[in-house]
């Protein structure tokens, strides 16, 4: 079996999603920490389109985009499935993954903007959470995947586990636990579950790093 390498970045939720999937499936891999201001020549060769992490390299074949990578892992290593077998159920899960991919950038816009732009992103972020709270599958169960974690949990984990630090650094509250009791319970389940708990960025380091980046960005003269 060809070796698996993951080019990632400790701060990145997208990178973490792939780590979670690899570890949940018990797939051995080598991890390469990319220094993002100084991307490696290999990274640029493997992802010429976006020049971003994560990139999974299986043998010599690169796969890019976190959720595309995870579907690839699911199809190549069927053990510990992260998707249901029924096509309709799969379609529902993929719908929600797409929803999360589409709406979650707003959370990052809250982090890095101010004023009207931030207000709009706040509204969109809260609406995203409302939709998940009300319509997300497997209400009453531990995870969106039911008793076990699936790709929707992984996708949302890449948002939910970063929201706290974003809130601290930006001073805005996105995730009001009282308004989103279901998601709050989900978050506790997800963060404490094995594999996930051992693979989260250090909270203090994350907060510090995000605070520094935000200050730099907002004080730079080119910021719009």
């Amino acid at each position, binding site marked *: 079996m060809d070796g698996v390498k993951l080019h990632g970045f400790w701060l990145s939720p997208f990178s973490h999603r792939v780590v979670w999937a690899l570890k949940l499936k018990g797939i051995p891999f080598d991890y390469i920490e990319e220094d993002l201001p100084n991307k490696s020549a290999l990274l640029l060769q493997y992802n*010429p389109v976006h020049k971003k992490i994560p990139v999974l390299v*299986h043998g010599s074949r690169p796969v890019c985009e976190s959720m595309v990578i995870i579907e*690839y892992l699911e199809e190549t290593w069927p053990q510990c499935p992260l998707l249901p077998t029924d096509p*309709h159920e799969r379609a529902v899960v993929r719908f929600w993954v797409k929803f999360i991919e589409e709406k979650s950038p707003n959370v990052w816009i809250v982090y890095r903007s101010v004023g009207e732009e931030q207000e709009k992103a706040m509204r969109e972020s809260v609406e995203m959470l409302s939709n998940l709270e009300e319509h997300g599958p497997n209400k009453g169960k531990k995870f969106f995947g039911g008793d076990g974690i699936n790709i929707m949990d992984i996708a949302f984990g890449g948002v939910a586990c970063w929201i706290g630090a974003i809130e601290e650094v930006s001073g805005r509250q996105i995730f009001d636990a009282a308004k989103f009791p279901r998601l709050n319970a989900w978050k506790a389940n997800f963060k404490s579950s094995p594999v996930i708990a051992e693979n989260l960025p250090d909270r203090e380091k994350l907060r510090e790093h995000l605070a520094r980046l935000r200050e730099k960005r907002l004080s730079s003269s080119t910021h719009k």
Partner: protein
Amino acid sequence: MAGRVVLHGMWASPYSKRVELALKVKGIEYEYVEEDLKNKSEELLRYNPVHKKVPVLVHDGKPIAESLVIIEYIDETWKEGPRLLPQDPYERAKVRFWAGFLQQQLFEAIFAVIKTDGEAQERAGKEVHEKLKVLEEGIKGSYSGGSPFINGNSMGLLDTVVCSILGAHKIQEEVLGVKFLDPEKYPTVTSWVTALAELPLAKETMPPPEKVAGLLQFLRSKALESAAA
């Protein structure tokens, strides 16, 4: 595969059109409900409460939303008939990657050209060319130019996406007074799109050029009006 199939769509929606193409490639019998987006049906709102958008495919009463999710569902459910995605996981990953790129990057850039004028439109136009250049480089390996179908012998998911976004490029270019598909700069993409647009399946499914022209003009004037307001 038995079961009643209903597609809630809208003639001007590229998302809706690509699902129609996929259904026809598979030879699936379906009922079509043309939604009036200013007066959405009660079913549509019930079937897609999150986005309230087309397309929605309803199979045996069970709804599926999001065009690319629908097409993957179709491929997994109707196993007879041509494949819409390749079998090999790595090839599938490439299809998903490029479908995402086309939708998020290229489509958005083209939309920006439609909705702007002056300098903003020029910038948007440059974006489109950048994206086309990336696409050209990316798919050069996969497309021999021998057949219009990017994977195998029949229209697949990626072909339906390209057809729905770039199939009407001639009309887009005419109405907007821009040039997107330059065969010298983007030979692979141009020959792919041209071949797809010529297929009887595309001709019978995609909206007629006059309707597309009218839609583009409407979208453009609406956008420019509200920008000036």
